[in-house]
């Protein structure tokens, strides 16, 4: 099997997998970074969202051969202790119900704030519409993003 070099959370990793292996499964099965979840496999639900060169992308639909060409940040790389303003806002608003989609939601929210530090509700709806929350915590997600924006969430 071919060898790929990945830059994940500012660390270098070498993995031995088939070239068509989605980044999601490399993160989860090979690198043991299991905070990134599996939901649909076709980039429709957003639970597998990570950052690729600063953009929110669906890791289920990026093969490892493409993933090695950029810088990847996962939920584990956002902060060591949950201190990122978006993570703190999520806790303060008590957003999670089951919690399964929330890593993906947070990664999308961080990407949004990096581009729009003070997003409107419409900006939030547009940026977050790719992330399904089956428990429907949307109202609190919106509030948490506004709170994170107030607290300098665009870092």
């Amino acid at each position: 099997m071919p060898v790929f070099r990945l830059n994940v959370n500012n660390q270098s990793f070498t993995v031995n997998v088939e070239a068509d292996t989605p980044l999601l499964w490399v993160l989860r099965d090979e690198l043991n970074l299991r905070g990134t979840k599996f939901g649909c496999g076709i980039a429709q639900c957003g639970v597998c969202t990570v950052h690729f060169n600063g953009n929110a992308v669906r890791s289920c639909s990026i093969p490892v051969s493409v993933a090695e060409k950029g810088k990847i940040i996962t939920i584990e790389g956002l902060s060591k202790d949950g201190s990122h303003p978006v993570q703190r806002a999520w806790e303060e608003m008590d957003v999670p119900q089951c919690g399964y989609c929330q890593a993906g939601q947070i990664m999308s929210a961080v990407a949004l704030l990096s581009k729009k530090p003070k997003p409107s509700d419409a900006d939030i709806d547009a940026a977050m519409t790719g992330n399904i929350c089956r428990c429907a915590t949307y109202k609190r997600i919106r509030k948490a993003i506004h709170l994170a924006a107030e607290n300098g969430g665009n870092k």
Partner: protein
Amino acid sequence: MKTANLKTSRRSFLKTTALAGGALLLGFDPFLSGGSVVSLKDLSTIPGGVSFQPNAFIRIGADGIITIMAPNPEIGQGVKTSLPLLVAEELDVDWNTIQVEQAGLDTKNFNRQTAGGSGSIRSSWKSFRKAGATARKMLVEAAAGTWNVNADECYTEKGFVIHKPNGKKLSYGNLAEKASQLKVPSDVNLKDPKEFNLIGKRIHNVDNRKIVTGKMDFGIDTKREGMLYAMVARPPAFGKKLKSFDDKGALSVSGVKKVLQAGNKIAVLATSTWSAKKGRDALKIEWEDDGKLENTTDHLEAFAKLVTQKTDKPKRNDGDVDSAFPNAAKVIERTFVAPFLPHAPMEPMNFYADVHDDAVELYGPTQTPSRTRSDVSRLLKIPEEKITVGLSRMGGGFGRRLQSDYAVEAAEISSLAKAPVQVMWTREDDMQAGFYRPAGMYSYKAALGKDNQLIGWHLKAAAINSGNASRENSFPAGAVPNFRIDSHNLESKVTVGAWRAPTHNFIAFAEESLLDEIAHAAGKDPVAFRLELLDKAKTSPTGTVEYDPERYKTVIKTAAEMGNWGKKADNGIYKGFGAHFSFGSYVAQVAEISVKDNKIKVHKVFCAVDCGQVVNLSGAETQVEGGIIDGLGVALYGKLTIENGQAVQKNFNAYNLIRISDAPDIEVKFIENNIDPMGLGEPGLPPIAPAVCNAIFAATGKRITKLPINLASEG
């Protein structure tokens, strides 16, 4: 707050605790022993050996760390927070310093480790508090003994016992050893609601930190030494079975270790999820028909015939419904159609199993761990006491994980493979092999008398494999003198099951829509009309009345006030009303919507809830908000169609779940009372579809009769 999974066995745990010295360990068995609490000594003599796992109990270490177990499966309904909170309230501890641990299945110590029927709080309200109160009483006695004072002179606060007259205080940790030697009191007093420090407050989900940092393990995250990942090829349609297969291609995929047949299924086991999936895709399988392949259109035809007929055994039959129609001033008839709904929890089905002849370890997301264990026991012919079931946090359930199929499948594959396996489903697997909300048809005929009183109500219902398609005691039952429900069952190969607020999730739409229509026909305001009916249910009830008309009226009036019912909204905004009673709780909603090009936009929902005493305000509010948006989502989009036995909608590109852009603003108000708490995971959902559809009528004059809403198709 920290949380941890307990990995030690009961026996080794007890040993560890004893070695650590001076610990008070309280296990409790709320039902088998009538809510009494037993001490460490008693627990160690309970037979059962290693299979006796710790469960809902309090552990106070000499190190001062207080641990409260969360016994029930957590699917996002918040019981991992709210049940320990009940214990903590009566124990009188600082919530921010305690630890909460998820327990595994333990039917010796627990009666109801189930996530379903909105029942966890309802069944645990008193017994869990009693466990906390008992421990607290023993700690107070231990302190009083130490100081040689009367226990009545002592009180507790945030993990300390304090001697009131002189202010001396001792921590629970310091008192643990002494308290563990005391006799367990059989009688304890519970707090008066006025004394609550935690119950009713906003308490955050105990797993938040882990969730927002990606450290929370769900079932899908299980990884053990030597474990193989499995993907399973299952029949591609209801009514198909396995004919033959060729696994050469699969076995040549790198990472694939084994291919196994288990009945009509073929499992591919590999060293990674992706290899297992590629291996499965490389199987060459021939399936054959096993009877007729069904279609949704066949079901609709069959329903249409059934709902013209009465049954021999009506579910409810008050007065004489046939006598109501000949002399009626007005007769209103409507037929409503319910599609199948998949549960589609965000975490697809998965389970870990490690099967040996003398020991089986199961771990994963299940709403019914005891059913899972008994089903695995039956299949593998291994006694239940040799099977352990660990509970992971679940990425949603909504009823899907009340089924045990995916866990039993994992156990079977592990047994055949003689290896630990994690069986992983894809989304497509989940959509096809579902246990859907039953599709059905609901045909109503209602009569208004000459004085515009509702005098007749006849429902003829039919649904797939549902047993009872109705909720025969739902309002307006009790308020109508001639009231009859006939329910037909349509047998099908399509598997169905409980879907959040089973049956309520559709009949609330049908019946609250119909009530709105009847109110208009009677020339009455829909809210006033409901209140009038509830007065009738109170003053001159017909048959069984399962709801409290006064509580029902209060939520209706409260929601109406919140939503300025009766006052005109802004231009282009229309209001609709819906209310429903389910799982012991009363919920009423006003929806504000607009309609443009046959598209519905819900702007705001006002919601009043009477669920009795609120346990966790933050958790309660989010359950109601989530229920409303979930109910709105399926009203707008939810539909699974069967063609030739296959689910047409195979993933989220075809099956739409509601997204943030459709989520309205929501205001929730809880009626304050100290009545014992009732269910809340489900009751928020049923009223939203009728509230929205009644607003659509206000906006367009069209009555929605089929879900999901398709304005263009309605007359």
